[in-house]
Structures are given as C-alpha cells and as structure tokens.
C-alpha cells in the first residue's frame, strides 16, 4: 500500500508545485516507486516543472471519466527511475474531479507504488479539498510571511476535519511543515518572520527549510526538479527534507545568517 502525501498550502505562489516535484523526485532517487499527481485542474504546472509538458496525452480527468486507462495517462520521468507523473487537465472543468473517481485512481496506484504525492491547487475549494481528502500525510508549504502563515493555519484546520481519516475517526493525517523561500538575511533585518515565529503559530513538526535560491527559478524554467541540482543550497535542502520524510534525523541547515567570507565575495561563490 502506498503512502499518500498531499503538498498543500492554502496560499498560492509559495512553492507547492516546486516542492511536490522536488520531493517526489527525491523519494524516487532514494529507490521508492513514486507517482506525483497534479490536482490543479485548469492551471496545470507540474508537467512544466517536471519537464514533461511535451509528452502529455491523457490526464487525470480522462482517467476518471474512463476515456483513457491509467497506464496511458502516466508519464514516465526521463531522468529518474521509479518516477511517474499524472498530469492535470488544462481544459476541462474542475468539477469533473469527483471523489469516487479520485478514490479509484488512488486505490489502483496504491497497489503499485510506494508513495503517491498529490500536488494540491491553491485555495480551500473543491480541488484542494479533494487533493487532501485521501491523504495519509500532509506537507504544508509556508513562506515566512503573515498571510502565508494564516492560510497554512486554515489548511491545518481543514486537514483535521475534512479528510477521510478525520471523518472515519482514524489516526489523523500526519502534518509536516515545510518552510520555503527562507532568507536568513531578511529575517535578521526583520523583513521576514523568523523560523520560530512560524513554528510557534503553526505548532507542527518541521520537515524542512528551503532557502530562497536562484537555483529554484532556474530549475523551474529548465523543467528539472531542483533536487537534481545537488550543488545548490535548495537542492540539498530538499534532499534533507526527503530524508526526514523517510524518518531520518538530519540537522537543520541554511537557517542562519552567514557572513560572506573574502574568498566567496571575490569569486562569487557560496549561495547559488
């Protein structure tokens, strides 16, 4: 049986899709059979981030409506073994996403995969609720700023009440906090909330901290999940996150302000 992980946030633009792509890739690189599903019907992006936009023929809605088989819609990742992508529909009405249909797809995938990563759309409407409904674990992506923290708080409330586990009174969805776009320099100068501020309000286990990094934008535009770029701080931070998801104890990195040394200033090294 696969573990179903939803990547969600409430707020848009905080890095859900980037994180879903990086974490799914990271899990696959560690030898886990992984599928990542885009639930953002009408605003699909995951295929771009994963660099497989030219190979999309069928999508999740086609499968749910019986117009295509699951194997026809699944796209095998070119770089990573064990990794498949199930894209969302860009044209269909998002109401076509039915709970019964999603359940059936997840059940089928569960037989074959170790991890199912669900990339949730922003907001708290139908699509977002469906993406989280069947989840065993949730990664709540949060930026260190007040509106993102409040939206994450809202999502955590929904995870505790509007999921299958909550409705069946099963053990609750395991919640993980993933802080993205963290800039220690701006935290020090007071522009950003500190790590402790965010953790105090959301009061859930921190699974990772991704520093603000040029590598992320570069990775998105190239369609290569940033976790492949192990020279970059963001790539390493996502790799740490995946290790923690797998239960390993990894010390936190990239959360402290670092003065640039003379050499790195001269040669422009350090953060890339």
């Amino acid at each position, binding site marked *: 049986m696969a573990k179903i992980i939803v990547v969600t946030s409430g707020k848009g633009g905080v890095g859900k899709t980037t994180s879903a792509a990086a974490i799914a890739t990271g899990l696959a690189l560690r030898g886990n059979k992984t599928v990542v599903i885009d639930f953002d019907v009408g605003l699909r992006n995951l295929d771009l981030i994963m660099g497989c936009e030219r190979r999309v023929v069928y999508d999740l809605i086609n499968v749910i409506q019986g117009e295509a088989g699951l194997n026809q819609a699944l796209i095998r990742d070119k770089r990573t073994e064990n990794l498949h992508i199930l894209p969302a529909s860009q044209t269909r009405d998002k109401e076509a996403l039915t709970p019964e249909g999603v359940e059936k797809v997840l059940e089928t995938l569960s037989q074959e995969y170790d991890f199912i990563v669900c990339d949730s759309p922003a907001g708290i409407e139908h699509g977002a609720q469906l993406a989280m409904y069947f989840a065993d674990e949730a990664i709540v992506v949060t930026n260190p700023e007040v509106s993102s923290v409040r939206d994450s708080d809202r999502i955590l409330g929904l995870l*505790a009440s509007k999921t299958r586990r909550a409705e069946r009174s099963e053990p609750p969805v395991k919640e993980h906090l993933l802080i993205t776009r963290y800039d220690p320099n701006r935290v020090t100068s007071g522009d950003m909330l500190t790590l402790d501020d965010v953790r105090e309000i959301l009061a859930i286990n921190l699974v990772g901290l991704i520093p603000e990094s040029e590598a992320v934008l570069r990775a998105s535009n190239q369609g290569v999940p940033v976790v492949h770029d192990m020279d970059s701080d963001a790539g390493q931070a996502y790799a740490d996150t995946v290790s923690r998801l797998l239960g390993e104890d990894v010390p936190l990195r990239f959360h402290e302000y670092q003065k640039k040394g003379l050499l790195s200033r001269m040669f422009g090294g350090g953060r890339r």
Partner: protein
Amino acid sequence: MSLNMDRETSAFTFKGGMLPMTVMELTSADPEQIRAQLAGKVSQSPAFFQHTPVVLSVEQLDEPHLALERICAVCRAHKLLPVAVRGGTDPVKQSAWALGLGWFPPQEARPRAVEDTSLAAIEPQPEPQPEPAPASAVGRIYRGTVRSGQQVTAPEGDLVVVGAVNPGAEVLAAGSVHVYGPLRGRALGGIHGDRQAGIFCQELHAELLSLAGNYKRLEDIDPRLLNHPVQVQLRDDQLNISSLG
C-alpha cells in the same frame, strides 16, 4: 385609591408554590437504626445536612404507632428539619399535628419499589434534571490549537481552551472564555448577554475581545498589555483589561 388602601391593610397574600422537597422514605421505625444510617450519610456528604427540610414518609411502614417524636429528634440532631409527615394511620396523623408538623395523605398509585437505600434516595431530586451539575459548570473544554477559520463555541457555560487561539479563529461562550495559551484570534464571552462573563488568557494578542456585545479591537488595546496574561471584565459598558501577572 382603594387599591392602595387594600395593599396597606393586607399583611400577606397566599400563593401556590411548588418547592423541591426531600422525602425521607422510612423503611424502619426504629430510631436507633435511623440514627446509625444518618450518621454514615453525614460523613459522606456533609453539605446536604444543613437544616434541610424533609418530609417523613411512613407509607412503607406497617406500624400503627410510631415513635415520631424520637425519630424527629434524631433527624434534628443530624441537621435535618422534619416539616411534615406523609401517610400512616390516624394516630400517626394526630401525633404529627401534636408535634407541630404537617400531614400529607399517602401518594396514590405510586410504584412501591423503593429499593435504593443509598444516598441518592434521600438526596433532593428536583424533577427536571437535564444534566449532572459538574457538566454545566464548565460548558466545554477544547484541547489543541484553534486554527484560522475554526470556530469553537460553548453555547452554555464557560469555554476553556487548552492551547492557542490563532489569528482568524473565533472562540465563543455563553459564560467566560479561558485560554491557556496565546489568544491571537477573536474571543467573545457572554454571547447571550451575561454581563458577569470575563475573558482570561495567558498571552493577549486578540484581534477582537467582546463581552455581552461590548467589544474592543486589537487597535483599541493598550499596547503595554499585549503579550501579557490578562483578564477582561465588563465595567460600566466598557471592557476593562487588567494584567494578571
């Protein structure tokens, strides 16, 4: 005018009333046995024996003559005040009157099985008893973080939150609101108009405080009180926030 005069001349009025009354259902006429049982009950719940009026019911006894005076003395010695006797023969009625007690006829068509001789049998039992007393004293206890968009309500009594109330969350109570943690959302006490209700929290950063419809916004709160333990009370239609530290 005549109405006023009438009022001045009358010393009292008679009114019908239904008062809760404890009935002491006697299953023995032996004063010593009663004394022994009462002594045990007093130690179990001393609060009950505070000159509590009781009606002695002798319906279950088959004795034509009762040592009523001695039974009454035993009761008074244990701070129970016999006020009347129910049931029994004509001599019992006469001796009740002689002792200055009232007499009630036996209750008709009443199930006879009163097997319960425990404390519950002698405790006052007002007929409509919806909930046990401890449950209504504290309306609701909520453990955990109240998150943005969530609403936790105690429609009766107080609300106790053991955890944080986050921004965008709302906690409401008919009585007082107690937050054992930071209060960062909205807290409304006395939502049915109870002006005695208060709000208590360990760390004040509330978006809104309201008691019986009177409110203060975060902006109106003295910044020196922010992030401190406080209590909020209603005084002259104004919310009064004072430090608890």
